[in-house]
């Protein structure tokens, strides 16, 4: 009985366990030996295929492509995604409270707000510059900065604006990854 094509293929691919059995058959069977030689010739022809050269380098095109979409570390991507999700949840939860507060609180004009901020800044700056470093430690128990008097609404709006900015920033950061 002759060897099957599968056995000859597996023999040449070194994927057969019982090589001795195949070899003893090949020693005594001219027909199977000839089939093996034909298969070996095909292997040699495939191996002889020369490598072709590229007509131009791919490096510049690929580097340009690759560097235009910088890779972020996976942990950063995941962290940013998680933070975005949390911020969105916080915005959704806070939205009804903000909507309730808006009509109840009187909004100062922009000019009033700027004047108030400027006067508070001057007071704070004057207080800080009046402290002497050497005596700071002694005065520490009595040291107290004047409290900032920012209206709740202004603070809420500032926080909301910061959150929005942060969300937009994250969105821009992740835009390429999401694509």
């Amino acid at each position, binding site marked *: 009985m002759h060897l099957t*094509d*599968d056995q000859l*293929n*597996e023999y040449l*691919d070194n*994927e057969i366990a019982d090589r001795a059995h195949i070899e003893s058959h090949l020693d005594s069977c001219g027909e199977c030996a000839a089939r093996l030689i*034909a*298969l070996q*010739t*095909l*292997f040699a*022809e*495939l*191996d*002889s*295929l*020369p*490598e*072709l*050269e*590229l*007509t131009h*380098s*791919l*490096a*510049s*095109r*690929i*580097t340009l*492509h*690759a*560097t235009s*979409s*910088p*890779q972020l*570390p*996976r942990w950063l991507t995941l962290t940013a995604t998680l933070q975005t999700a949390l911020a969105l949840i916080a915005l959704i939860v806070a939205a009804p409270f903000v909507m309730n507060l808006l009509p109840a609180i009187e909004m100062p004009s922009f000019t009033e707000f700027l004047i108030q901020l400027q006067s508070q800044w001057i007071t704070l700056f004057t207080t800080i510059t009046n402290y002497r470093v050497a005596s700071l430690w002694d005065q520490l128990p009595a040291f107290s900065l004047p409290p900032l008097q920012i209206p709740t609404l202004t603070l809420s709006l500032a926080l909301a604006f910061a959150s929005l900015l942060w969300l937009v920033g994250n969105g821009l950061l992740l835009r390429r990854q999401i694509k």
Partner: protein
Amino acid sequence: MTAPTDRDLIVRARRGDGGAFSELVTRYQTSVFNVCYRILHERGEAEDLAQETFIRAYNRLDQFDLEREFGPWVRRVAANLCLNHLESQKITAPLDEDRDADESVRPEKQVEARERSEQIRVALASLPPNYRVVVELRHYQELSYDEIAAELKIPLSDVKSHLFRARKLLAEKLHAPD
């Protein structure tokens, strides 16, 4: 000064060093292009797919296991990409005249050798796409049957049948009496 290893270049490329990745491309572009060319047998397509291979490799660089070798990995990515490309195009028909053919004038022996190479390439390109890729992975990337099965996510029995049938078809085309 010794040249940086592939591993060094990958680490630098992960940190955003475009030059390091460019060096990796330079090192492997010819072998990757040849994988694509053996499977597609069309220079333009092969170059496009080779480029796509490196872009994909760059995007997967974070997932690359530094203990593995970059060359065999990127060539397997190329083989898979070519298979997907062929399957998406459903190219199973025999080659048409647009496929590459070398017509340059050379000394007689070189012409003969090139003609034989061309016959082998034509025979390879005439195989069904999944046969071509199995031949590529076995003969040129030297993967075992099990590795090919894992790479292509197909059963071991399919690897064997594709490979053995592919060889039979190649032998019929290449060794047929004139």
